[in-house]
């Protein structure tokens, strides 16, 4: 008698490994496939390595600014290869940590490319390395990869994506970044700190689409001061090796970088995994799911970037959990109103819920309050000469917290609190009763809420 797994998981990223962990903990038998490495893009070529690099940039910034805090340091320098090695070490450590988790969950890990073959009755067949695996449920979470737009002259070997840039051996003297989204902006910050000359070419009128407009402006102004060049509303029309041609206000400009980073978006990995073999509904943008992360095929679920929206590791993990809970018959569902968004630049950006622009777009009547970070004592104590602000968006009629957006300091660490406010639909007057620890930067949320 062939072994039938309770759940087969395609993809070992934040959706897949978290789902495997949760399912294993509930006693389900799990098989999880990944063609590259456990941890997915997030752990191997996304969240974790970039945060490791950005922390080196932060330490460097401290060293440069030590004087301001009355600390004398010797000559400050950087060792790029050491920085990159430390990043590799962090990634290795966390990847092996996931391996341990999979063992703990008694999940069978198959490090190979897997293809969905067929679904017969309640039995789903997956093939990997010539072996077949059968499962009662399937979770598809094959993630996404850097989108490569059809720019004339684009030669993949001449440009970098988030994957290749993390493998650089030498620090480039100049870097042209096509696409000023979250990924582009974080790399801009890191390499700028390392001393690389950065040029960002963004097609839209502002960088960091989706982030609060005031915050995007604030960060761009900050980066401009540090010497980063921005070309907004600029469309790349041609690539010639590492020479980038772009059109702005009807004029054509050319710029050449020692390296060119392409970070214009992500593309769902829907091809080559056998979605069509069992009739899963999908478009090139992604697989369609419902609030329980179900696809159109019974017992087949999808989670993470493959869905084509909310491309965030934490969304992926949550979707994986929701899918497992649905398999287990536990009441749970996705809610996308309180998913935080964080950019780990210096200063950090963190936000949740509606922005001013999205409220306007949806026609929701809101009230907005904004306060400088300087209202939080600890921020002043720890951020000499630095700035930032907090913006809170509340419903006009009932005063429910709809959005909290911050820039400055380590605001990513406190955004989860704002997520809880939004998730719980607390109103301004409810939040006013919450005790915030003093002195912390988080008090800025309370201060801003008292502005209502």
């Amino acid at each position, binding site marked *: 008698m062939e072994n039938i797994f309770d759940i087969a998981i395609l993809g070992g990223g934040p959706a897949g490994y978290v789902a495997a962990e949760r399912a294993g903990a509930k006693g389900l038998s799990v098989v999880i496939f990944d063609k590259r490495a456990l941890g997915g893009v997030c752990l191997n070529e996304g969240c974790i390595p970039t945060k490791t690099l950005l922390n080196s940039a932060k330490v460097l910034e401290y060293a440069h600014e030590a004087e301001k805090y009355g600390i004398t340091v010797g000559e400050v320098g950087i060792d790029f290869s050491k920085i990159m090695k430390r990043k590799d070490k962090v990634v290795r450590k966390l990847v092996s940590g996931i391996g341990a988790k999979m063992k703990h969950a008694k999940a069978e890990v198959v490090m190979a490319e897997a293809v969905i073959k067929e679904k017969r009755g309640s039995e789903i067949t997956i093939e990997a390395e010539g072996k077949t695996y059968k499962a009662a449920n399937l979770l598809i979470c094959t993630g996404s990869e850097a989108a490569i737009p059809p720019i004339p002259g684009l030669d993949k070997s001449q440009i970098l994506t988030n994957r290749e840039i993390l493998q650089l051996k030498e620090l480039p003297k100049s870097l042209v970044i096509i696409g000023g989204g979250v990924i582009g902006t974080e790399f801009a910050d890191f390499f700028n700190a390392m001393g690389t000359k950065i040029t960002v070419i963004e097609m839209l009128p502002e960088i960091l689409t989706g982030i609060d407009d005031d915050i995007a402006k604030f960060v761009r102004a900050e980066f401009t001061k540090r010497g980063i060049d921005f070309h907004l509303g600029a469309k790349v029309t041609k690539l010639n090796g590492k020479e980038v041609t772009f059109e702005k206000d009807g004029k054509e400009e050319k710029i050449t970088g020692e390296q060119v980073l392409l970070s214009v978006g992500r593309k769902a990995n829907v091809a080559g995994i056998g979605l069509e073999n069992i009739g899963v509904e999908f478009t090139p943008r992604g697989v369609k799911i419902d*609030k329980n992360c179900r696809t159109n095929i019974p017992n087949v679920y999808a989670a993470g970037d493959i869905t084509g929206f909310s491309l965030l590791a934490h969304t992926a993990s949550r979707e994986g959990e929701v899918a497992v809970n649905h398999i287990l018959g536990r009441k749970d569902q996705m809610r996308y109103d309180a998913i935080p968004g964080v950019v780990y630049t210096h200063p950090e950006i963190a936000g949740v819920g509606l922005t001013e622009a999205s409220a306007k777009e949806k026609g929701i009547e809101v009230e907005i309050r904004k306060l400088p970070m300087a209202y939080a004592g600890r921020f002043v104590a720890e951020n000499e000469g630095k700035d930032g602000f907090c913006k809170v968006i509340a419903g006009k009629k*009932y005063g*429910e917290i709809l959005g909290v957006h911050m820039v400055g300091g380590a605001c990513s660490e406190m955004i989860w609190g704002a997520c809880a406010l939004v998730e*719980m*639909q*607390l109103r301004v007057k409810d939040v006013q009763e919450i005790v915030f620890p003093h002195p912390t930067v988080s008090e800025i949320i309370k201060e801003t809420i008292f502005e209502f």
Partner: protein
Amino acid sequence: MAVPVLMPRQGQSVETCIIGEWYKKKGDQVKVGDILFSYETDKASFEEEAKAEGILLEIFYTEGDEVPVLENVAVIGAAGEPVEEFRPGGSKPVEEVKTETVVVAEVVAEKPTVAIRESSDEAVKISPRAKKQAETKGIDYNQLQGSGPGGRIIERDVVTAAETMPVMTSLAKAKASDEKLNVGAETSGLGGRALAGDLTSNNQVYSTDFEVKKLTNIRKLIAKAMHASLQNSAQLTHHMSADARTIMALRKKLKKDFEAGKVSQNITINDLVCLAVIRALKKYPQANTHFLGDSMRWFKKVHLGLAVDTERGLMVPAVKNADDLSLEGLSAQLSAIAAQCRQGNINPELLSPEAATFTVSNLGNYGVEMFTPVINLPQTAILGVCTIVPRPKDLGDGIYGFVPMMGLSLTYDHQALDGGEATLFLREIKEQIENLTI
């Protein structure tokens, strides 16, 4: 010496009244003539004045409570005087209950401390304590099944409902109580909480696109009366029109007379039509009747009902012995009852459908050309008066001209009158209007 404040009796048929608003608080000093509270019958609202001076020692019924007439509503007396002897049903004081444990409170709440009359039109029976609890907790008590005597909702029911209902987020609570919504079948919030988006009015199809408003008492009464009328009679309508030249000329003259101070009232077309109708009824007494199934009341006098449109709804007050009145007297009475209806201080006795023997409903002012008025049972007929429109008419010698014609729509109960009788009666009204003299 403490004295009770009674719920006044407004007319013989009124058995309970609902307290609208208290203008005085417990502990307030009141003087004779101070307005204590407002209250409503099914048909009108009134204000109760203090008849004694002193301190408002206790209030037994709060706003929205339905109170039997002549029941003690409050006590006025000197500070410190005992009030318990006046408490309706003689239960324990509410203050004491509040300090006791929940279990004891429940037992007390179970006693029929507040007699809410079992009214036929499905008023929700709920104790004041339970109601207050429900309002604080944001629970829609209309949906609760009462476990108290006679299915009355008591505190225990509200407490149980609060425990079993899904937890609502603070926004959902505020929105639910504000917009009178309920938690839908599915909740989507954290840990099964009900989010504001999970709220629904009862109808799932329209979701939250409407709000549920309770019918006012008067609306309920109208609804019941109208439905009953169509269900319990065999009504149909005949239409006819009357040459309005005479009546218009009369009206013109009377208006001048009024402006010249020769008559005391500004006589309206409606007053003149009513006069014509009264005269017609005297000739056709079979239309001046009540149909009672196995018998009919044939009235000697004409008690004329007049449909009055008010902010709160349709009212049909009666002018008693209208056939005894002069035109000026009739006009004065018609405008007086209409005004009283609009002000809400009409004598409820006059609103009873039994008070009138025949009703006139005039929609002429609104430009209605023809309609089918609904009989105010047990009356046997009702006249709808329509707008005046020019129509061609043979003026004699084959000469046609446009003449102002007033539409008349007579609805009658075929159980009581036959078509021939009704037609003759309607003709009589027409002729009375066409040949009206004062």
